[in-house]
């Protein structure tokens, strides 16, 4: 939350876009999204098997969704500029990326 202040400032500079990632067939679709700092990404699981969205760059992970059952969603706000790699901790071959720009 320490980056909240600059994020809030940016919010007034341009409208916040909503970004969605659909989880289907054991893939994150699209596998890469680019967002402005402070914007949110929402993942929705369309598979019959639960998946997670888990920080793939840090141990322990800085963010993780917990299990997303069929049809459920989880939203995370990205406040750090840079490349955020994530994966499904249930099926580690499933990987995705969020690129956060100014």
């Amino acid at each position, binding site marked *: 939350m320490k980056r909240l202040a600059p994020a809030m400032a940016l919010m007034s500079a341009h409208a916040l876009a909503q970004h969605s990632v659909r989880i289907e*067939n054991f893939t994150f679709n699209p596998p890469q999204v680019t967002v402005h700092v402070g914007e949110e990404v929402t993942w929705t699981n369309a598979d019959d098997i*639960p998946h997670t969205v888990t920080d793939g760059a840090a141990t322990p992970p800085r963010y993780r969704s917990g299990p997303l059952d069929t049809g459920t969603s989880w939203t995370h706000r990205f406040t750090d500029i840079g490349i955020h790699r994530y994966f499904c901790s249930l099926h*580690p071959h499933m990987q995705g990326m969020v690129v956060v720009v100014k």
Partner: protein
Amino acid sequence: MDSDENEGRRGFLRCMAWAGAGVLWTVSGGVPGSRLLGGAEAAETPGFSFVQLSDSHIGFRAAPNTDVTGTLGEAVAAIGRLDSRPALLIHTGDVSHLSKPAQFDTAFQVIGGAGLETHAVPGEHDMVDEDNGAPFFARFTKGAKHGYYSFDQGGLHFVGLNNVQDLRAGGMGALGQAQLDWLRADLRDRPASQPIVVFAHVPLWTVYAPWGWGTEDAAEALALLRRFGSVTVLNGHIHQIMQKVEGTVAFHTARSSAFPQPAPGTAPSPGPMKNVPPGRLRSLLGITDVRLVRGRAALAITDTVLA
């Protein structure tokens, strides 16, 4: 593999599985072959036996199976109909679908209906709670707080491994150094003649890397098992039978009691096979019965379907 060449020296393993209406799979030197059979050799030889259940996924309620508690109950009932009573029951993980205490409790109750001493290892679905598997360990691993442990029964040494903890992005199943160190110490003073049964959720051989169906550091564990004359590795995770023999090590994956998954690479993803024709589901679910055949250093593995 010429069995005469190996018998009496280091023993040989013959793996058998009934699929549907009595197909016998004999895996020899890594090459599986099948033929129809009239009676199971394993059933003719009384001895120590145990049964394997896997991938119950209590909490799953989609196609092709909206009653996974019911099919687990049928699997337990099938255990009761075996010719001789197994000495114990092993569950190779994914007891639950979402690691919910209520799902664990339901599974515990249904599996308990078998009235058998039960040992389990976690699947990745049993470890998605906030506490990294603590609710599973409390119920199913008898105090082994990391989910791996060993015990002796019927002259066999059983080793339960946890290869679903702290998985890393892009990887497959993993044991980790601490567990490998524990395994080394556990096996160190055992005679090479003692049959070893290893059970873990994700296959300890790479079935299909693109779907993560393997264990990254399995080679290090298998190196520790190499000197033993009879090693049987039982896994789940892939919801179908696969077998392979490498030297004295026989690998076997069990069917699920909940839903089948596609053969490697035959579908866009490893998700449940939804379009199972009505009436055919139970022929794709099942239990595994493992029998020690005395004097022949062989473990016979028999898979039984629910219908």
